């Protein structure tokens, strides 16, 4: 298994270095502040929130996998996880603000020892709020302690959103690690067995496709048809929706782009595929992302670049809806990943 950039002591583990690459290595023919310029041209600068509807909580960087493209630089060697105290601050905010969705992510969120407690407490506060868990699938079969996760998810009516970059072992394993495809199929069968992804069960199982290389995702609708067919026929697996997510040029995917010599072409493709409609619908306009240590960010990507929200109080313990709604969203060239083509967000295409 590969190690995280941090464990490898890679230069890219330093966010200052990452940001300097994004800001200074803009492909020839484009301005250094190309994203800001595009927003200005389409009347969206400075980017501002619409309404805060989604609270995305990153409960830690610990993960049982070390995917090559991971923007979190997560892995078994990462020890940063959210404490119960910080989770309590999140719960206090959930109590005082009406969110439509609480989105739990990581790492593998289930590896946080307080994960189940957090879910139970959210449900105590709000029976109806949509809780999403971003489950990497393999965690369900990684250890007997996790085998009952499908039942736990079902009990609390959690929406499961899982990464499966492709419907073949070769392409999935090349991105996520040897044997991941087979384990993912096993986990998907366990989720289907309790009703997830099945019509009329009310239990939602969505899959996430992201390209396993330096190319953009195609049409979400067409890929969904293909995924449904290819998972149904040989594996009898069913799911609800496929979300296509573009890989953003940060962290381990940035490392891959630089090492493979694809950085310039990829950036050029992202920039030239800028779609103003997708820009209008970017997820940072209705989401707040909470880091493992309780700091607040415009999105999970800005979180990994340590670009905190631009407000005076930046910690969940000092949440203030009004100032957060009036803030200016921080952007840099990586944001082109969310505005290219059909757009990209944690909920897939945006236009």
């Amino acid at each position, binding site marked *: 298994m590969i190690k995280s950039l941090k464990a490898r002591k890679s230069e890219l583990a330093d966010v200052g270095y990452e940001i300097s690459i994004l800001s200074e290595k803009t492909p020839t023919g484009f301005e250094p502040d190309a994203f800001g310029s595009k927003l200005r041209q389409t009347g969206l600068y400075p980017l501002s929130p619409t309404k805060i509807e989604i609270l995305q909580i990153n409960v830690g960087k610990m993960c049982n996998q070390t995917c090559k493209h991971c923007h979190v630089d997560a892995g078994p060697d990462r020890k940063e996880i959210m404490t119960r105290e910080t989770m309590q601050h999140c719960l206090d905010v959930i109590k005082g603000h009406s969110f439509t969705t609480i989105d739990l992510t990581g790492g593998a969120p289930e590896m946080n020892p307080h994960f189940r407690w957090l879910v139970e407490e959210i449900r105590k506060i709000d029976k109806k709020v949509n809780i999403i868990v971003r489950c990497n699938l393999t965690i369900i079969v990684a250890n007997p302690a996790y085998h009952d996760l499908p039942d736990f998810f079902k009990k609390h009516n959690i929406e499961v959103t899982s990464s499966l970059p492709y419907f073949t072992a070769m392409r999935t394993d090349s991105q996520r690690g040897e044997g991941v495809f087979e384990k993912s199929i096993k986990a998907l069968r366990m989720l289907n067995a309790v009703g997830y992804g099945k019509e009329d069960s009310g239990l939602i199982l969505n899959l996430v496709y992201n390209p396993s290389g330096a190319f953009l995702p195609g049409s979400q609708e*067409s*890929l969904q048809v*293909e995924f449904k067919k290819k998972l149904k026929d040989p594996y009898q697996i069913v799911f609800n929706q496929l979300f296509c997510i573009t890989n953003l040029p940060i962290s381990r995917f940035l490392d891959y782009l630089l090492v493979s010599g694809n950085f310039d072409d990829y950036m050029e493709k992202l920039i030239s595929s800028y779609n103003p409609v997708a820009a209008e619908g970017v997820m940072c306009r209705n989401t707040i992302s909470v880091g493992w240590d309780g700091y607040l960010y415009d999105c999970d990507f800005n979180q990994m670049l340590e670009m905190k929200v631009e407000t005076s109080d930046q910690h969940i313990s000092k949440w203030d809806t009004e100032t957060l709604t009036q803030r200016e969203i921080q952007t840099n060239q990586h944001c082109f990943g969310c505005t290219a083509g059909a757009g990209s967000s944690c909920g897939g295409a945006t236009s």
Partner: protein
Amino acid sequence: MKTYYNPEDLKKFGNIGEFQKPLADKFFDYYGETFKEGALTAREKSLIALAVAHTIQCPYCIDAYTVDTMEKGCDEQQMMEAVHVAAAIRSGATLVHSVQMMNKYKELSM
């Protein structure tokens, strides 16, 4: 090193209108329309384009439709099978002409 083919030129394809705009516009409209979802899916059309690109041996088209088929979710087996279809038709076209050779041979032989 100077070469006849430069990968950067693919990005300049749209510039052909500089020398003759009305015809270029007509071509690009037609091109765009052709590759839209229709009776064939955009994915099927992209695989056909990949196969044809190999037949006409255009390096620009091979690059462009390798990316395009990957974006549309085709895997390496499907892509290679498409190229084999092109290769089979090409070799078949060579071999079917051997009937003419056989006809002529028989005509001239005692």
